[in-house]
């Protein structure tokens, strides 16, 4: 009677995964020999924890873990008032290492790195399930750690870490302690601030470019991590896990450093420490959206004074002009539009035409601006689709202007 395996093989199923490490047998390199952690008791049994404490002057690159800065600007950006005036000790910095990226109930967070400020130290805990059977204990330990906290800080946690952890709690029938927490996802803030300057906004890249921190050779690329855990489960050899723990620790520390760096940045955006013009403009736009127009204006002006690409310059001119328009300072707005118009900016032409038509009833001037815009789009090489859109608008405008002029 052929075995199931034989029968499946004869039906074409690939049998015997390649490159599997031999299964566990009295292994020298158990986790407690390799890592500096300890078992932790919880209401759900035992799990494994690696702890570390960092003093207040520890820095990731140029960024200390914590600078005493208010989170107001971050609160405003996140549209979450609960962050305003929040005690930094109630922040929890969280990053997970998982068995896969696809989500779903078969994805486990085998390593949860979580940190918070305690007094003058930063306390990092890395909760590790030595075996999936320890998951309930691991989750209970996380819940305990999070108990005094009221806000989460993650990097892409909204789309990834938090949904996965929530799923983990739910598979055991528990409510997730992460639900309804105040949540600052620094990926989104990083995008707002550095989208134009940095081509890649992964945490390691930001760590390097913004914080000036460099990881050692102990690090391992994220895509290799799931397989390292599977190999450990099979072989019991914990040595490769060292780099996974290092990777995770660095992620959490960078989260804290990045938050403090960003908070400092936004608290003093006009500071000389801000070197890059693109950063200045990004902040300008951020404050503009929060209706902090004075600050935005200052930043735009500063940005315009720096070394900008033509496109960035035109954009800045236009946005600044719009602020002035909103504040009813049309004189300033017009000057800026004229500057932008000199640089062939179509929106500026239209704004000028509108201004002359509606504010000053100077139809000749309005027509001038509209016709100039028209001549720009009729130049060869102008993208046909856009041309079509603009033509419709400009022609419509000119018709009306001519009517008003003649009637």
């Amino acid at each position, binding site marked *: 009677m052929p075995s*199931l*395996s034989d*029968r*499946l093989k*004869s*039906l*074409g*199923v*690939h*049998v*015997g*995964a390649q490159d*599997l490490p031999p299964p566990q047998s009295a292994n020298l390199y158990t986790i407690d020999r390799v890592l500096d952690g300890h078992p932790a008791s919880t209401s759900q049994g035992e799990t494994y924890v690696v702890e570390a404490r960092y003093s207040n002057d520890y820095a990731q690159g140029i960024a200390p873990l914590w600078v005493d800065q208010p989170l107001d600007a971050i609160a405003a950006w996140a549209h979450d008032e609960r962050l305003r005036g929040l005690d930094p000790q109630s922040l929890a910095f969280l990053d997970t290492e998982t*068995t*896969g*990226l*696809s*989500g*779903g*109930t*078969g994805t*486990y967070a085998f390593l949860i790195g979580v940190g918070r400020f305690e007094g003058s130290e930063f306390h990092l805990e890395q909760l590790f399930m030595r*075996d*999936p*059977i320890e998951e309930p204990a691991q989750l209970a330990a996380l819940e305990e750690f999070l108990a005094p906290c009221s806000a989460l800080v993650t990097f892409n946690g909204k789309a990834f870490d938090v949904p996965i952890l*929530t*799923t983990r709690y*739910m*598979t055991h029938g528990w409510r997730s302690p992460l639900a309804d927490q105040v949540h600052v996802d620094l990926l989104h803030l990083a995008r707002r601030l550095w989208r134009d300057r940095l081509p890649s906004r992964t945490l390691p890249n930001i760590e390097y470019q913004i914080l000036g921190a460099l990881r050692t050779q102990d690090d391992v690329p994220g895509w290799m991590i*799931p*397989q390292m*855990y*599977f190999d450990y*489960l*099979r072989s019991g050899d914990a040595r490769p896990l060292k780099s996974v723990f290092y990777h995770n620790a660095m992620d959490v520390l960078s989260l804290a450093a990045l938050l403090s760096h960003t908070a400092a940045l936004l608290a003093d955006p006009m500071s000389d420490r801000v070197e890059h013009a693109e950063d200045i403009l990004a902040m300008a736009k951020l404050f503009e959206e929060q209706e902090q127009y004075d600050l935005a204006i200052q930043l735009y002006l500063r940005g315009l004074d720096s070394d900008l690409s033509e496109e960035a310059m035109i954009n800045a001119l236009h946005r600044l002009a719009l602020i002035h328009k909103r504040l009813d300072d049309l004189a300033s707005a017009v000057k800026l539009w004229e500057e932008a118009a000199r640089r062939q900016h179509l929106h500026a032409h239209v704004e000028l035409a509108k201004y002359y038509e509606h504010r000053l009833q100077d139809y000749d001037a309005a027509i001038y601006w509209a016709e100039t815009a028209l001549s720009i789009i009729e130049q060869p090489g102008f993208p046909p689709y856009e041309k079509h859109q603009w033509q419709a608008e400009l022609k419509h405008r000119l018709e009306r202007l001519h009517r008003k002029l003649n009637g």
Partner: protein
Amino acid sequence: MSNLSALLRSWRSEPTIAGNIDVWNSAPPRPADLIPLPDDLHPQLADALKARGIDSLYTHQYSAWQQAQQGKSIVVVTGTASGKTLCYNLPVLHRLLQNPQARALYLFPTRALAQDQRSALSELIEHIPGSITRLPLAVYDGDTPASARPSIRNKARLVMSNPDMLHTGILPHHTNWADFFYNLQFVIIDEMHAYRGVFGSHVANVIRRMQRIARHYGAAPQFILTSATIANPTELAEKLIESPVVLVDNDGAAYGERHFLIYNPPVVNKELGLRRSALQESVRLADDLLAYKIQSIIFGRSRRTVELILTYIRQSLHSDFDASMLTEGEDPVRIRGYRSGYLPAQRREIEHGLRQGDVRLVVATNALELGIDIGQMGAALLVGYPGTIAGTWQQAGRAGRGDEASLAVLIATADPLDQFLARHSEYLFGRPPENALINPDNLLILLDHLRCAAFELPFRPQENFGNVEAARVSEFLDFLRENGVLHQSNGQYFWMADQYPSQGVSLRSASAESVLLQSLSDDVPVTIGEVDQASAHWMVHPGAVYIHEAQTYLVDSLDLEQNLAQLQRLETDYYTEPRLETTVELVETSAETQVPGARKAHGDIRVTAQLTGFRKLRWYTHEFLGFGEVSLPPTELLTTGYWLTLDESTVERLRESGLWQGDPNEYGPGWGKQRDLARARDGYRCQVCSLPEQGRAHDVHHKTPFRSFRDEAGQVDYHSANRLENLITLCPSCHRRAETAVRVRSGLAGLAFTLGHLAPLFLMCDTRDLGVHSDPQSPLANGQPTVVLFDQVPAGIGFSQRLFELHDELMRRACELVATCDCSDGCPSCVGPGGENGAGGKKETLAILKALIS
């Protein structure tokens, strides 16, 4: 007199039509069998029904209600347009109104159906106060925008979806549906008969996974299934949900007088067994329907047929109605095509036109693709047998409004099954023979779904999986562990792999590897489907004509290393049939018994097949057009089979009658001279198509096959065989039409052919789903003459065992088929087309069959 009566009278009296009507079945009108709305029905629901004009229930709706109220799972089997949906909507809505937390899941085989049901249900609950908030219902499938999904998961109480979405989109994320599963009380499975064969076996496992997850949340929902009429509805339902099911089939719907005709296009050449085209006949009949102003629907089996019919009808003019009915443009379009792939907006437009009466004729492919709401027609024409009896009734059921008289016409093609049904219409009108079969424990399929289940929830020690016992489940789990996707700890099995298993499992294929089919659409390669690697070599070999969703493609290339086939969309006037050199070896016999004249058995077999070429055959007439060359390495298929081995005594008797195994033919002395005389007599012209000889001599064909002139002693009467009256001059093309260049068809091969075309009728599958092989010296049975039929699905899907059980009936039916066929010595409608030397094998096959039924 109504239009329909007038039309039928004219047909009855028109000999060129009446003469072709092989069967005229009239069912008298039947009034509705009604029961007042139940007292315990939620008052708001009762009010809503009354607002829709429903103040009583049909008997079957009432029975469904009663059983559901007792907590039973039920399967409802009643006719088309009999109000089956109320059988489930009523118990579900009642429960949702009574219990504000309760939830229900509706599963449909297609998205179109789900959308239609949602609209219909919305219209009903509109009349329930506050229904928008109290009874939020939603469709949740691949088309649902991502932004809408969280709200549906959290709030919808009635979710409409399909098995594929359940499989990849819902079950692997069940924690997002925690409240839904916790409160799940009903699961509705509509069109249950669609879940048969490979697809059904997969779906049965998806249902197992779903029940496992429901149990995890503490729920044990009731099931309500609906089905078209099949032989085994209770069996299929119970296999799908693995719980007892009550059958509800007391159809109380009203029907007007129903006429069902089987129209058989006349034979144009008796000796060659050729008939006039069914397609052309359908145009003729449609013409009449239009003239008599009967709103009709025509079903064609392929898009090509649909398009041809539309073209021909638009071209033909009938003097009695104005030409504006045939034009598009500013005039309302009266004649429309309808097929899958139309945008919802187009479908709505056509449906609206039909309901308003503007559209007089719609030509469509498969009924299921219609969704439901095109309304009812006055008449339905089926061009060719749709492939299943259930499908035939579903299509025919499109005709019939309330208690008005209706007409359905099945126009038979030259296909053996079509012709068989024309002669044996009791299959259509009597107890249905069709068994919808599934094998949820097929090894490959089960393995796939255990993988998915392990991803969804870890397996606990001693856990079963549906009806699969814990010990067996452990075997699979250990296999998966050894192959690195599961980790075992404390008896529990955890998913430990960086994969999302359900994505790699197609619910429609059943082999370890699939070949992807790609076609170029605007220079962009598009995957149109996939086939099992085991079948790829004969389904999609280079040069094959492949049909997918009623669209034909020609295969350009097949790469078995890359598992990729390149196809191009092409309308062809022919289809292809692979020529395979097959050997069948025994792996293990499951059961074996003696039957009259033979031994029957079923069990595991190994089929090795090598493609050696293929035939090109014209659509509908099955005319042989030529050979295609192709060669591919042999492939091996491990599956289940049913085989029949003739007893030594049977063979001996046949041998004595000279009906066993032809020897190679010689046409004898004087053949050359006779041949020339025949050509001269015939004026050197083909006697069928009148083509004159052009540079090369035409062929001369024996009308009565040569081998018929062999007497019992094996002596051949050349003189009689070759006399001029028995010879006919044919051009090569017409000659090919009458014969194929195959080996002499023996009785055994004829038997295999017949069974291979008849068995699908019982198994509700396509002829391509069954492999057939005959071997006068078969290794399956110690070198004895054997015919074997096998599942084309690796590890088998249940056909073989059922055929084993149906053996007696199968033999009787096969004997009838061959005995009553009009052809002289074999044709595509019974034992297969005749051999090159004029030997059809019909007599031999019949002799074998007679021995098998005594």
